[in-house]
């Protein structure tokens, strides 16, 4: 399986605090990679290194390399805006803009300079369909993105990402604010999406990682302790710390 992204000896610092320590991790194309670990282990920080969202944090520093299709995204001259188009992100808290549902989805394409109403209509419909939201809200495209339920808002945020046609989708605990039914819908959606996209998901929920992912990485104190096929990592963990964590002895 081709590696879509690779990190090589990735270190990350918040000021003097080292949050990631020499992480080497390859992300397979068209598969789902889950990152698990206790709070503060660096899994979210790692995720945000993959589309340089950490750039907006003051006094942070990255060392090592992050490759997207074998190009280092941290090398000078890389267009961060271009990068984030290719590597989209869904956040922990559903964060639709205070605009209409239509405008939320059209936001990305519009910023890329697309203003043709017909093309926008098509993109909005296709994105909402792909995010399994179209049938629920097709009558309400003019309503505020904040007026729908939390689970719908999160799928709207996914639709919004799909509208800019990324290659990789990063999901930072996308279900932690949702109820079980809404969570199930997102998980089903992820299985559909992986046919066309590469997905990396950070989750607190080990069952979720076991259910949805093909590969799992276990982080602890900024280190990638173990990384392997999900079925293997959860059944025969190689590292004692992984075993302790997945059997619920800490975390």
């Amino acid at each position, binding site marked *: 399986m081709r590696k879509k992204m690779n990190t090589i000896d990735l270190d990350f610092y918040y000021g003097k605090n080292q949050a990631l320590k020499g992480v080497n991790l390859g992300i397979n194309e068209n598969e789902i990679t889950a990152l698990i670990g206790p709070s503060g282990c660096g899994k979210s920080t790692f995720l945000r290194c993959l589309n340089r969202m950490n750039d*907006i944090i003051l006094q942070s520093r990255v060392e090592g390399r992050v490759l997207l299709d074998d190009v280092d995204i941290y090398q000078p001259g890389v267009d961060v805006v271009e990068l984030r188009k290719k590597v*989209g992100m869904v*956040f922990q808290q559903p964060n639709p803009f*205070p605009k209409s549902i239509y405008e939320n989805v059209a936001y*990305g394409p519009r*910023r890329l300079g697309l203003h043709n109403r017909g093309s926008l209509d098509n993109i909005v419909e296709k994105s909402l369909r792909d995010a399994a939201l179209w049938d629920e809200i097709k009558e309400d495209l003019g309503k505020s993105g904040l007026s729908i339920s939390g689970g719908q808002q999160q799928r709207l945020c996914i639709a*919004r990402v799909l509208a800019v046609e990324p290659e990789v989708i990063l999901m930072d605990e996308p279900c932690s604010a949702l109820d079980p039914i809404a969570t199930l819908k997102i998980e089903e959606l992820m299985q559909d999406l992986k046919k066309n996209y590469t997905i990396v998901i950070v989750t607190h929920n080990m069952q979720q990682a076991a259910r949805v992912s093909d590969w799992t990485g276990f982080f602890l104190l900024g280190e990638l302790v173990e990384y392997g096929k999900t079925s293997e990592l959860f059944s025969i963990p190689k590292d004692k710390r992984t075993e302790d964590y997945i059997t619920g002895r800490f975390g």
Partner: protein
Amino acid sequence: MIKIRNMRQFSDSAWKQVILVCGASSIVILLLIIIFTLREGLPAFTEIGFFKFISGTTWKVANDDYGILSFIVGSIYVTALALVMSVPLGVFCAIFLAEVAPNWMRQIVRPAVELLVGIPSVVYGLVGLLLLVPQISKLGGSGDSILAAAIVLTVMVLPTIISVSEDSIRSVPRVYKEGSLALGATQWQTIWHVMLPAARSGILAAVVLGMGRAIGETMAMIMVIGNSIKIPVSPLDPARTMTGSLALEINYATGLHWNALFACGVVLLIFILALNSIAMVLRGRTQQ
């Protein structure tokens, strides 16, 4: 036990009374201001007639002929011109401070902006007289003009517009910004299409606060606006504001002249109340 409970209930209700009195006092003060201004101003309205008073273009104390249209026009003209200059400047400065400036720069600029608020308006007037009026006289006229007054006002209302706008931009949830950036929007697109719309009710409040300050400003206006009683046309014309007339003439006014000045104060109050009502309606609309 029961006794203690009674004590607590007593002190609780006593606090409620104290707070109620404090809250009510602001309304009482506002009412007193309106009542007394009205009482002194009403004779002018009855003697001259309300519409004749506000539409009259002559103000001749010797003839007991009082019309304040030129003052009204002067006040609105100078306020509008000041807002045209200060709103873009202030909002962009707020964006810069909230989103663009590095921390150390913000720590210098922000206190400097706040210091501007503390400078007495008479000092602004002096500086305007010294720096602006001679330059503007080169464009034509005496230099004492709407333009000079509007520039002085711009500087005076900037701190209000900047700090209130900056606060409202900063209070936009960080997730909006991150959501936009993560979609491949540039920093500027994110500010323009997400941050500013989300902050617009706060920015609107900033503009209205600035407007209130501008229309009420007196001292600095008197010093640079020329104070001539005629309807200004060009920004280089001198003019007189409602507040300026009050300050210039109240010391020697008697009889109908005194009442006319208070009536002018009543009109000013109506303007301020109307402005605030418009602002409240606008804010209500954006919040929906």
